[in-house]
């Protein structure tokens, strides 16, 4: 049924009033706008504006129909028939249909594409198109509420030749989605201009959104106070007090359950030996690392302290040089007065850190000093986003990595620590933890899942596949001129269609 023209007319008139663009600042511009290869939070936020999922979160964070109008779960809960919304078009005007859903799921599952999001469709056995607006999904296991798992973004099939999509496909800079905003241009000064999608199936108030990369961190707080930008996604810890005192800016919690870690390459380097890893952990003074960069909590495992899965019994470790010396000597290293050497070769470790991680440089310099004093030399290397995806995600070409993981409210560490996890860069492989993670995923009793993951926390902390560092306080700042702002705890822009700058 054609959408009545009248509301659009009214909307058009009222939209004129909000011609002011909503300029939001990121620390670093997203490199790839292709949901198949989304790896960073800034890319996830951009996808939220430009693409849609079959289901999405409503104001009370419950799954609600979006591109799929209704989902009928079969009797044996092993398959589901989805009726897709009618009259939806892509940004280039082409109609949205079942082919797009089928293409997206197949592309994510295609091993040669090696999509970083393949983990999110691992539970779908098969996807078949019934007709232009109906799709049937078959599951590997009985699913209680599959719509909770159908929030991944749908791509336009007509923009790709096959389900084998290359990472450097030009789609990365000219994304076509069905979302509330369409990308107008990837500008040269690392900013991205987005206009409202006029044919979106629900009202979009804001006319234009611009993503700016804030190059100058020193003035980041002042920029939003003086309205050079309307929104700052991640406020630097040192600017929290300034922004809170200002009446023209309001702060919203945006923790995203993120924690920093120093990952060891557990497979093919000196760090294969757990004694060496444990020795390195004993050498690091985490408080001294955290002090220059901000306020936060030191952690002992793969969860943030507020998480129900955090095991508070695991003791935070203190610097213990003697233990480190003993461990390294056991592992066959010899200290020659200046550095630890093994069969003549001094222990030198290559540390990869992402350029995009704010204040990573301070931590790396600090860490390098601590290790150098203990006789281990570190060669740091700051990698751009594209290089990071190659070296760390694909080739695992590093000894140490310093990075930060952010989790949504499920805090699902399966991908990071299960031997079959797609994000297990460090190459951690422990049968017992695999069992715990599998039982946590299959758990039907919340306390069972809590107990399993708390045990996993303790076991992982003991194996030291990585040194768990800290979680920082993280808030986003919004100018008072942006109205109706409700921030999604992970994807930030889920309800951005209701926001408008006045």
């Amino acid at each position, binding site marked *: 049924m054609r959408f009545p023209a009248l509301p659009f007319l009214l909307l058009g008139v009222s939209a004129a009033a909000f011609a002011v663009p909503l300029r939001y600042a990121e620390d670093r511009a997203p490199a790839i706008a292709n949901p198949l290869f989304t790896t960073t939070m800034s890319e996830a936020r951009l996808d939220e504006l430009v693409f849609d999922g079959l289901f999405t979160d409503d104001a009370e964070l419950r799954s609600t129909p979006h591109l799929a109008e209704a989902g009928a779960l079969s009797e044996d809960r092993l398959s589901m028939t989805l009726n897709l919304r009618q009259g939806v078009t892509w940004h280039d005007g082409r109609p949205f249909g079942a082919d797009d859903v089928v293409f997206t799921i197949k592309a994510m599952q295609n091993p040669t594409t090696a999509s970083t999001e393949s983990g999110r469709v691992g539970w779908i056995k098969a996807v078949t198109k019934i007709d232009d607006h109906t799709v049937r999904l078959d599951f590997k296991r009985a699913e209680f509420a599959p719509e909770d798992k159908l929030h991944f973004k749908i791509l336009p099939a007509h923009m790709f030749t096959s389900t084998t999509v290359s990472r*450097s496909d030009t789609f990365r800079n000219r994304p076509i989605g069905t979302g509330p905003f369409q990308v107008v241009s990837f*500008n*040269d000064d690392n900013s991205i201009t987005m206009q409202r999608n006029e044919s979106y199936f629900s009202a979009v108030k804001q006319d234009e959104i611009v993503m700016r990369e804030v*190059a*100058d961190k020193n*003035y980041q707080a002042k920029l939003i106070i*003086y309205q*050079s930008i309307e929104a700052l996604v991640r406020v630097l810890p040192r600017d929290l007090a300034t922004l809170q005192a200002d009446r023209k800016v309001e702060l919203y919690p945006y923790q995203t359950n993120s924690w920093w870690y120093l990952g060891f390459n557990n497979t093919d380097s000196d760090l294969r030996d757990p004694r060496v890893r444990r020795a390195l952990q004993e050498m690091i003074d985490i408080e001294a690392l955290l002090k220059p960069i901000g306020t936060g909590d030191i952690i002992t495992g793969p969860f943030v302290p507020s998480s129900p899965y955090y095991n508070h019994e695991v003791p935070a470790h203190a610097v213990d040089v003697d233990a480190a010396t003993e461990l390294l000597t056991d592992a066959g290293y010899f200290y020659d007065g200046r550095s630890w050497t093994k069969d003549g070769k001094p222990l030198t470790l290559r540390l990869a850190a992402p350029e995009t991680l704010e204040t990573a440089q301070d931590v790396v310099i600090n860490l390098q000093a601590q290790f150098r004093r203990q006789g281990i030399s570190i060669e740091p290397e700051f990698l751009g986003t*594209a290089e990071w995806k190659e070296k760390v995600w694909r080739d695992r070409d590093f000894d140490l990595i310093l990075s930060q993981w952010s989790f949504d409210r499920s805090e699902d560490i399966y991908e990071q620590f299960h031997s079959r996890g797609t994000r297990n860069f460090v190459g951690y492989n422990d049968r017992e933890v695999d069992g715990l993670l599998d039982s946590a995923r299959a758990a039907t009793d919340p306390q069972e899942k809590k107990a399993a993951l708390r045990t996993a926390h303790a076991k992982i902390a003991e194996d030291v596949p990585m040194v768990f560092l800290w979680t920082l306080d993280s808030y986003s700042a919004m100018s008072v001129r942006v109205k109706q702002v409700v921030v999604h705890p992970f994807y930030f822009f889920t309800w951005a269609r209701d926001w408008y700058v006045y």
Partner: protein
Amino acid sequence: MPLRLIIGRIAVFAVTLLGAVGLVLVLLWAAPGDPIDLLPNGEELRPILEEQWQLDRPLGARFVAYFSHLSRGDLGTSLTYRPGMPVTEVILEPALRSTGWLVAALGVAMVWGTALAWGTAGRPTWNRTFWQLVSIAPVFLLAHVAVNGINEATLALVDSGWMDRPRWFALPGQPHPFRTILAIVLLAVGSGTLSEVRAEVENALVKIRSSGYVAAARARGERVWPHVALNLAGPLTTIASSRAAFFVGGLVILEKVLLLNGAGSILWQAAVLRDYPLALGITVIFASIVCTARLLGDAVRIAIDPRLRAEWNA
């Protein structure tokens, strides 16, 4: 009008440009390891590169192949900066912008230098030492001090309520004509340019003012400055054309520091990402700018200088 001299000049231009491109290609050919290994996604791009650069064929053949492409205006495709996009499409518009800024900066340097020199020709004054001290600073240091000085001053003014926030606030973040003008002025002043231009103009002025025909003009009671200005044009063009190469170097730095989207900042990105076709393309364009500046310099000098024109007509 003897065609010989004009063709001579154009021949020199062409041969020099040819030499520059050859130099750059030799650089790539003589690289110890295989440059493709240095690329992060080297394996993936090897087929494209093999075909495009004929890496396996000898230098001469590669030279001819690159030149045949160049003559057709095809500089190859970008590898890592904008993968798959033809180089010409990536750099055409930014190169025009950069050339515009370059010419503007040259103009500012010439006018400012002449103005400073005009007043104090020959006499050592504090003014000269001051400008020498300011101008001596390298371009990036001037930009660092200027940008942060302006930001801090604006911040103080806006904080104290004397003025409200200018649109360009927080250089270099927000794009605004003011940021471009600042870059042009810094390029005209920095790395000793302004004081050197002033020194050269002063030497020329001293020579002209003490020359015979100016004394004669003064004797006839005519106004002196038209003569001086006319005679100054020759040396000015020499100074300008000799400085072009130096300005391009400064421009690359300023575009990177002040986030201007010209060919210079793309060259820097291409160098960091090891996007060789793009870097080569931009280098060729910059070399042609320098050679054109030199050609124009010669042409203008010949046209203005009566003696040379006479020799030309003979």
